[in-house]
């Protein structure tokens, strides 16, 4: 049976739409009922109970999490696989070019990574295309352990690497390596809507065999005369150079440009655009770099909720430095045992001063009293 049926909503979000005195009374009544139901659900432990029983029935059913079942794994190249997912009803779709957070459990620890969605929004199935990064924990895990039937947790689609509502007439898409994934979603979206009017797609890969989605791209170019496809293989001398690029795409500065690739290429392309006085939209994924353990330097700490920035050093604990800056985060024992100061780190890297371990993934929980920053960071405070 197709496991695409989400569970019942115990807590219905009510739309409160005005209109007359009667409607106003009705809406406040509904609001009251919704709040009351929310409280009752929480206080009577209904959510936990229902969540557990739903999980017993089908592991992708959930009231709270977007979970998806892997329905297919496609081997794209030697080190790239596409995972085709069928999410539960918590998933509210994506726009072409956006990414999702995928969450897998590796040896008991939930690890999150952002991956661009490579499928078209028209497809009810969501595809992520993952290149195996040497030494990469999540990509290796996905390649080695995840197959059809497995369940993974997703985050809501996010990101602004998307076409504007008013679509530009002339489009230039540049990608390299696995940076093709969000761009491919845009391509597929355009193709599905038969909206490929004047698109130039430049892609760089190590070799012909490393071009992800090559067959599909060739087919698209055959079907859509408006698509100009330029695929470069670095091992055949196709490396990016400014002059060659400007020669082959002379109107690049006039085109709405979308760029995704490794940092080196992106820096050079961005420089070229700067010189031409043109703007482009780019997507990058990189984890923060970590300073050495001994030297003390200043980094920027952003408090997301209070929208405040504080300069802190890499040698002191976050708790002490926050307090010195006049903040009063919840805290207790100050020696790392009571977990009162636990706080969500949105991005950046911190070092655990008790055991030296480093947290550098986005959205991990840390203990303020025993953590020192190693890079610019943002906390959910």
């Amino acid at each position, binding site marked *: 049976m197709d496991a695409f049926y989400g569970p019942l909503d115990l807590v219905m979000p009510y739309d409160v739409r005005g209109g007359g005195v009667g409607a106003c009374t009705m809406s406040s009544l509904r609001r009251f009922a919704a709040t009351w139901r929310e409280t009752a659900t*929480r*206080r*009577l*432990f209904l959510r*936990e*109970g229902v*969540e*557990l*029983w739903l999980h*017993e029935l089908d592991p992708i059913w959930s009231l*709270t999490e977007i979970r998806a079942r892997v329905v297919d794994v496609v081997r794209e190249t030697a080190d790239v696989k596409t995972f085709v997912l069928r999410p539960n009803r918590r998933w509210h779709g994506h726009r072409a070019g956006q990414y999702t957070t995928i969450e897998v*459990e590796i*040896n*008991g*620890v*939930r*690890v*999150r990574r952002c991956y661009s969605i490579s499928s078209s929004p028209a497809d009810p199935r969501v595809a992520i295309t993952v290149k195996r990064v040497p030494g990469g924990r999540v990509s290796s895990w996905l390649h080695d352990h995840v197959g059809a039937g497995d369940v993974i947790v997703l985050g809501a689609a996010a990101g602004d690497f998307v076409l504007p509502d008013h679509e530009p007439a002339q489009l230039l898409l540049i990608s390299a390596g696995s940076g093709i994934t969000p761009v491919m979603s845009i391509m597929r979206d355009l193709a599905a809507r038969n909206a490929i009017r004047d698109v130039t797609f430049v892609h760089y890969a190590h070799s012909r065999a490393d071009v992800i989605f090559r067959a599909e791209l060739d087919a698209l170019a055959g079907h859509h005369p408006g698509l100009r496809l330029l695929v470069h293989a670095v091992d055949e001398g196709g490396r990016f150079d400014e002059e060659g690029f400007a020669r082959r795409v002379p109107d690049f500065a006039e085109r709405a440009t979308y760029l995704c690739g490794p940092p080196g290429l992106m820096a050079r392309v961005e420089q070229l655009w700067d010189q031409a006085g043109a703007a482009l939209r780019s997507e990058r994924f990189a984890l923060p770099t970590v300073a050495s353990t001994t030297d003390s330097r200043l980094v920027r700490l952003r408090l997301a909720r209070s929208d405040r920035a504080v300069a802190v050093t890499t040698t002191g604990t976050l708790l002490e430095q926050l307090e010195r800056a006049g903040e009063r985060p919840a805290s*207790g*024992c100050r*020696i*790392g*045992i*009571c*977990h*009162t100061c*636990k706080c969500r780190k949105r991005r950046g890297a911190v070092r655990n001063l008790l*055991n030296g371990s480093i947290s550098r993934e986005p959205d*991990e*929980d840390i203990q303020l009293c025993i953590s020192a920053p190693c890079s610019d960071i943002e906390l959910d405070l």
Partner: protein
Amino acid sequence: MSAPRILSREETDALGHALDAIRDDVLRDLGSRDVEHIRRIIRLAHHSGAAGRLLLHVGIDPVSFVCGVGALALAKILENMEIGHNVMHGQYDWTQDPALDSKSYEWDMVCAGDDWRHSHNYEHHTFTNIIGRDRDVGYGWLRVSADQPWRAWHLVQPPLALALALLFEWGIGAHDLRLDEWLSGKQPFSKLRARARPFLAKARWQLAKDYLVSPALALWNAPRVLAGNALANVARNVWTFAVIFCGHFPQGVRFFTPSEVANENRADWYLRQLQGSANIEGSPWFHLLSGHLSHQIEHHLFPDLPAARYPSIAPRVQALCKQYEQPYTTGTFPKQLASVARSLLRLSLPLPHRSARHASIRSDFSKHLVDLCSEQQ
């Protein structure tokens, strides 16, 4: 058991490092089997709870009543001890699983999660057994150490303790209200009222759940369900009371005065935890049902390590105690219960009850302090 040897600064720090090494070994080894364990227990608790409720709701005979109460009590005990207490300690925060998150977990009993996180995780585990600072020493009502001054109401503490055992969740729930401070005039009523708000809200819903909603769902069986829920709650209360009192108040456990612990470092904190807790011997099921608080010593040393790991590190902790000539207070459940009962009875009287052993530690300790001072001069 011999009195603990007074350790030099270097010895204490070495002991601290040895304990840190145990902690690091466990941290390095944490993995899927720890998560599988807690998820298995969560499932067990849910299934047992469902079975208990089913038996109470649809059964009409006394056998299904007794089985239903037993299954429901088992569910409540597992949820409070192995799951609730341990998850709220942050023992599974490393998994980054929102269902095992210490800050948002709420347990199925009248004590509000946030009150507990403050009075237990922070106050009790940081200031363990410091008289005047650790409000868990006798919970403000009972005299469990000869170092606590005697008051007239201590005369009735044996029946008081029995009442507390039956209503333990209410004692824990009201603990962070500091009723004793209000009675003695140290806390204004407005503050008490503010403190009581989360507790009253939680208690109201707990009462509604067990004594209103659940019986109402049973229709004609309502009285049976109400009685079953009450019995399951009381069984859980008595069990947790027994486990916790045996972990903290049997003979051999040491208490501290604030001046003794001034300028403590991490190693001194470890030593205080070691001397201030007691274990209970038993089978793996006994350990599980106690939430592994039968390994109170290991729990107090490493409150945020997954509790199911305590039995495996206990031999290493015990070996360190032997090496540094520190007490490792342990005994069977009946032995520790008897010891607690004796203590409660004896300390209900105003006799000068500092045991010979206690006195010797104290004099050793002061002698040690004098030695230290003269060395520095």
